[in-house]
């Protein structure tokens, strides 16, 4: 299903105009889900329904849909649809972010029917920031004072300049060294452990998340989205997240398995929903990004780094940017189309590609906007062809 987010804030689910004990509906500024659940818990009727709702959602998929059909769960749903919990949101990097996300999913899993292809992001929409557009224009020039690119005759490697800018900043250098040393430390082989992973992946992914959460994007994005004139630079860019540990694993899972694992974790599920929301190819925008908001797409892409669904450049070709996940669609039976559609949102995403290129090349680079027709749920094999009018 393709959700075009033509709104800055999307109500996905049915909204009711009926009276509710928690105050007349009307338009209300969405609270964060931590505050919303506190408010609900202060109201006896709401808190009891909220507890019922959590029981309705415990247990596997099969029991959940049967439970949701029950009267008690339906009743709980009624009340909760009018509570602040119903349209609460979360902010990236907020205090108690994980708790906020858990609260959000604890109610939204009940309101959706089965597994949706695209889920609504719990995060507040990312507004296109002027300073980001400005930064992406100067991303080349601001580094030019220190960047060898501007010195004639010197080999130009914007990714090396990005590393330099990071190394000259205490926080960036410290946190980059932190994730680097964890991710590139090979775990010594233990013959007794079968299928042993080459590194401690969970610790590596956590350190990687901390790097992108604590280092300002002016220093971290250039490491990821620098533009590359040659293969060595592109290989440096590909290695930024130490993919051998954070992205790859010994056994390549099915992409749907990757998505299922991700959606069983509140943080990963939220970041994936956010990526789908902000990087989803939208046909009627110039950049093929929702609201032409590159920053939103890049920010939600970076939000996935260090999660179970960690994307990365799939090769070190300097010009042709291809992003992929470490997964396969082999042996997914009749779900192969859905599996491929899920992976194509990374491998054939013109919005993501344009966003990366526009950040790296800045405006002087004359970003080559790729305006492929929007991908349907599954991309049409060919775009509609207008043939010449037949002679009448």
């Amino acid at each position, binding site marked *: 299903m393709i959700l075009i987010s033509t*709104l800055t804030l999307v109500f996905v689910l*049915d909204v009711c105009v009926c009276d509710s004990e928690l105050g007349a509906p009307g338009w209300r500024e969405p609270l964060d889900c931590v505050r919303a659940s506190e408010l609900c818990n202060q109201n006896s009727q709401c808190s009891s329904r909220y507890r019922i709702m959590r029981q309705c959602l415990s247990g596997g998929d099969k029991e959940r849909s049967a439970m949701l059909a029950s009267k008690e769960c*339906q009743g709980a749903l*009624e009340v909760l649809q009018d509570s602040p919990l119903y349209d609460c949101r979360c902010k990236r990097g907020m205090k108690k972010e994980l708790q906020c996300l858990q609260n959000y999913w604890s109610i939204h899993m009940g*309101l959706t029917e089965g597994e949706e292809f695209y889920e609504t992001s719990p995060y507040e929409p990312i507004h296109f920031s002027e300073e980001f557009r400005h930064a992406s224009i100067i991303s080349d020039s601001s580094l030019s004072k220190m960047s060898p690119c501007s010195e004639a005759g010197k080999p130009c490697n914007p990714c090396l300049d990005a590393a330099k800018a990071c190394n000259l900043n205490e926080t960036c250098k410290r946190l980059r060294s932190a994730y680097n040393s964890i991710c590139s430390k090979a775990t010594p082989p233990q013959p007794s452990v079968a299928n042993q992973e080459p590194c401690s992946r969970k610790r590596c992914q956590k350190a990687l998340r901390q790097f992108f959460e604590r280092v300002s994007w002016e220093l971290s994005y250039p490491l990821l989205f620098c533009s590359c004139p040659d293969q060595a630079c592109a290989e440096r860019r590909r290695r930024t997240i130490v993919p051998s540990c954070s992205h790859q694993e010994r056994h390549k899972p099915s992409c749907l398995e990757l998505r299922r694992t991700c959606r069983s974790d509140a943080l990963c599920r939220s970041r994936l929903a956010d990526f789908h929301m902000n990087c989803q190819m939208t046909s009627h925008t110039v950049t093929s990004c929702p609201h032409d908001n590159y920053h939103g797409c890049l920010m939600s892409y970076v939000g996935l780094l260090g999660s179970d669904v960690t994307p990365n450049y799939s090769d070190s070709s300097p010009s042709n940017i291809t992003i992929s996940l470490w997964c396969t669609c082999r*042996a997914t039976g009749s779900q192969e*189309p859905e599996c491929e559609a899920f992976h194509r949102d990374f491998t054939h995403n013109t919005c993501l590609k344009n966003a990366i290129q526009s950040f790296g090349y800045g405006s002087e680079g004359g970003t080559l906007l790729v305006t492929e027709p929007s991908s*349907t749920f599954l991309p049409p094999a060919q775009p509609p062809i207008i043939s010449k009018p*037949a002679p*009448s």
Partner: protein
Amino acid sequence: LYFPQNEYIETVYVGQPAGTPILQVHAMLDSNSERPHFYLCWTSNLRRPPYSSWFSLDIHTGILSLNKTLEESDFTLQYQKSWSVKKLFLQALVLQDFTKKSQCSGRNPIRITLDFVNATMPQCAQTDMKELCFPHRDTSNPHIMENRFPGALRQLRRLTRLNVCPNYTISYNVESETPAPFAVNENTTELVVTAPLDREESERYRLLLVCSVRTETVITKVETSLDVFVNDEDDNSPYMNGTDTADIIISFNRTMGGSFGNLFVFDRDLTPIFPIAQSHNRYDGTLLNSDPWIKNTFDIKDTFSEKKAARGGIRETVHNYKLVLKRNLYVTENRTLQLDYLVNDTTYPGLEGTVVLHFNVTILPIHIQFSNVTHMFTLTRRASVYAQVGRVCVENCQQFDGFSVTYRLEVPDKNVSADMQSCYTAVSITQAPDEMWGLLYVNDTEALRRPECQDLQYLVVAQEEPTKQEASTQIHIILDSEANKANPVNQQFLSCAVNRRRADCESARGLGATTGRCQWRQGSEKGISEKYSTCSPDLRTCPDSFCDAVESKDTSICPQDCTKGSVVGGHERGLRNGIQAGYGTCYCYTEKCFCEKEDIEEAICDD
């Protein structure tokens, strides 16, 4: 009954009159007797969205249409914060028979998303042909279950644009490069599958939908492609392609978990690895032998993979069966047996859903013996303590797995004089936990230097665990240089690795030095390299990135292979420990190693 498509998207405009058809949902039959009944359904019956009354779904045709004319006020009622387009979400069900309870929960509804635009429908002049012919953005591609009944799967006509250009005639036809059982019902403009499909024949049909728009003067053709996918059903039984019997010989490798043999069972159906709980094309197997020894000793492991068949590239499943040991086998085990294994495609409805595999297993006993060669080793009396003399190994020891062999030295002639007895402390034997060979090394240099200790003859005894089987052989260690030439007794040996220059190195007597003197390795490469310069007790075994059984007795023997301490200067660590590569010269003190370019003056504070 099932929906070939679980997602529909369309646009509705202010001013569209009641009765306007919007789109048509379709259901396919699972059995000929089924009749679809379509219903709109709601997440909760008590609180339906305000727009729930604006639409109705025809119970028989599945056509969704407007119950009322859409007004400007309807748009503002919907208080989603948007100015141009608001989203209306509907869900629909298909049931076998009538129902009053139209609740979505637990019934796998399809989703209908309508973009409600705050403007009137574009007139004929503003509507291009593409908009007229096909939905704005086609939603999901249809999936049709194989072996089912023909029927309509999609409405090609854009119902909302039926009357936009009244004097146009719009017709459709469907084309395909390869023969495809699809047609267009000219009366209803529905795309119809005309015959049951066979996924094993074709998994996907790439259709070309051609829309012809005829006006008085011109015919315009607009094309778009549509992929129709065929869902799989377990309608094929397992088959063997080649032998159903594997002849297996178990000899050296007798370890728990060891796998032997390969038998392949094919199935033209798919076996999805995801979702895990999927019961489609599920195989299980049963060991047909009742002998408890076989049941406690062997298991059969089945791994399946997907492969594309040569003809047409259609995906199919290949099961690979291996015999697996559930426990270590004793070396004395000596037996032949035939093991039969019934493979069953549990979800295949037919009778021939099983095949039987046969494993003819021969277990050979292992004899622990030394090759009947006299093991000769030469050793200089000047050798330092821990100098490696050589290694001993029973026959085929490198291939052993599942049992262990330990080695010990014995004096062959028990009634030799007390003096001679003390000579035998000169050499000792050791072994790493996961290695199958023994390493001989110098244990007592004082004994090595005594003139009366001439040629040393030892008996090496190898004992197998757990059966305690033993074998022994004679080894002869020839001491080459005269006793008096050897260096003075109770010589204090340091680590060769401390020396940073060739001269110091080659004049030093280091631990483990086989010749008595340390050996210098001169590196030649620029930058960090595996061939760094260093001082070693024996360049054959150190550095070789492997901390062997003798070297691990004392880190000072070969810190280059064994150090776990910090390394200063440009270097790369070995996988477990030691220095894999270094810059310039690598040298080590007890707690720290250094790798740096030579020409070092001594550090003096000169300010």
